[in-house]
């Protein structure tokens, strides 16, 4: 190979890749508005992003998979935890993570900053990114939850859940609200006894929790709900 060929490889390689890259960048720019639902990107969301940057959240947490790897990914935090649980973590990390082997700094955020951050995470949650991350994939939740529900639709626990209106705050597969954590996620982390105990008086187990107490249910009923929630999680990842 002569010097001329070598130079030709250099110029062809560089310019062809550059032209392709710039053309795709123009196209991607055009598609971002739809893929990220930019119509929902209001002033509060932008204010939330500014708080997120000012407090350097991204050097512990990842978001869209980028950042520090020291704390959970926040891409789907809003679906996973719900706004109340996010708010509690931001306001009182020293209480929420009191027993955890890894802590989150108390940032002394103003109420407005907390609300802005929640709005920001809710917007991020809607970004269409080919269903990443896998652990929060709605498609996977749906598959595993459908299986669990198929065998349990007629069960007393499912009926109880309907009666008590759990899904008016909690997420389940692609249903329910995003005020409290999604039920499958609770099932992954907690035991039957813990859930039964929590239902009796949430504020006792987690001070500051906004969930109402379900003390009117019998111990047996609460345990049944616990079993149901734990069973929801068992199929996840298959």
């Amino acid at each position, binding site marked *: 190979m002569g010097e001329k060929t070598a130079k030709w490889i250099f110029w062809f390689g560089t310019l062809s890749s550059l032209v392709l890259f710039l053309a795709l960048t123009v196209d991607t720019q055009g598609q971002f508005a739809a*893929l990220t639902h930019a119509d929902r990107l209001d002033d509060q969301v932008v204010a939330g992003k500014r708080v997120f940057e000012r407090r350097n959240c991204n050097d512990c947490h990842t978001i869209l998979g980028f950042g520090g790897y020291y704390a959970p990914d926040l891409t789907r935090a809003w679906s996973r935890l719900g706004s109340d649980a996010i708010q509690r973590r931001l306001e009182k990390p020293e209480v929420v993570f009191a027993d955890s082997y890894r802590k989150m700094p108390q940032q002394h955020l103003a109420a407005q900053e907390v609300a802005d951050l929640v709005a920001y995470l809710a917007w991020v949650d809607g970004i269409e990114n080919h269903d990443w991350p896998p652990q929060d994939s709605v498609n996977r939740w749906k598959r595993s939850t459908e299986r669990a529900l198929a065998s349990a639709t007629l069960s007393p626990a499912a009926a109880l859940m309907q009666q008590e209106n759990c899904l008016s705050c909690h997420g389940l597969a692609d249903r329910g609200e995003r005020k409290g954590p999604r039920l499958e996620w609770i099932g992954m982390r907690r035991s039957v006894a813990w859930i039964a105990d929590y239902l009796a008086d949430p504020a006792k187990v987690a001070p500051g929790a906004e969930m109402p107490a379900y003390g009117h249910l019998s111990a047996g009923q609460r345990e049944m709900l616990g079993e149901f929630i734990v069973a929801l999680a068992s199929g996840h990842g298959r």
Partner: protein
Amino acid sequence: MTQKSQSIAYPYFVMALLLFGLQVVMGLWLAANYFLTVPQGVVDVFPFATARAMHTNLLVLWLLLGFMGATFYLVPEETGTDLAYPKMAIAQLVLLSATGVVALVGFFFGWTQGRPLLEIPRPLDFLVVIGALMFLFNIAVTMFRAKRWTAVQGSLLGGLVFLALMYLFGIPFYKNLAMDWYYWWWVIHLWVEGAFELIAAAMTAFMLIKLTGVERKVVEKWLYVELGLFLFTGIVGTGHHYYWLGAPAYWLWLGGIFSALEPLPIMLMLVDTWRDIKARKEPMRPRLTWVYLIGMVVIHFVGAGLFGFAHTLPQINYYTHGSQVTVSHGHLAFFGAYVLLNLTFFYFAIPRLKGFAGARYDERSGQAGFWLMSLGVLGMSLAFAVAGVLQTYLERIQGQPYMLAQQPIRFWMLVAFAHGLLVVAGVIVTIRHLLTLKPAPPEATAVAP
């Protein structure tokens, strides 16, 4: 050394080495955060996030100062003229070092732009830009005045201009997070897999010409091919970061294909170096410089090429993205590609700057430094890799909540920490050795006529 003004490189090397030391100490603290429970009181004052900002910014700063010092050594020798404005080069070092120190202290007090790796606050960004402009102006004027162009110089200048241009994309505030990350990668990816590679290829080619005595025409011909392949695969290869950030689906296959080719230019660099060494006209002395040179091209290939390839395909990356797998690749790649590049250049340039006979130096403790660092970083990267595979399986595939899945990873972070101790020891030995480099004992130099 052929020109007097090349000596400006030395203070740059010294500053770079001191920051390097600080960087690895901060790394130890980060690893400790993973397996220890740091109490709330400490976390409130000095969170992991702050330490990480320091660790990564120190790396970027010292690598850039190393590249700049190397440029100030290389350009006068290539052009055969003195640097256009030697005093400006010193002022630039003072400006950039001061900016760096202010940024680090600022991080501690929460003054940050809050975007990973680009934490330097915007007002300081402008000082960085001024420093970069001083640098480019100085180098460009020197080259244009001399009018003696070589491929090595062209590649170096191209890489440096490319680097400075891309930095600008990291400065604005982006309202849309997806767009933010899209351009964030223009800084991060197009630096490490674009501009930095041009600089690395130029510095390596320069050292090969000087060390092996192989004809410049041969080295420069292959340099063109390397650069063409680096840019062909690297530019569209940016797409491997666009899989999951809300960009269109075509990035999945374009990013996958182009980035799967990214190991090729690195392999070519390895083969070129090997061929030049076999065709060498000079003896391989001092031995340590050669150990560094070969270590660099090999670990560059393994860390950047192989470890990168391992998780670059979208089918795999869906599960590994944003896990400790990235950390594993990041550490070995940066070490092999750029840390060893700078250190190789320091070992090449410092004996020449100091005017040692035959550029021979007393290399004893330097050998220990190299092996402690290299084996330490390798062990560390393997520990991160185990942690990453565990995380991928437990969190991403089984679907365990993050903190549950982190529990078994803590042990592997302790293993990473233990290897980190080797790294810190190696870095201290190396810095000491480089800063107090002595001529080779007389019996060794007597061999040379």
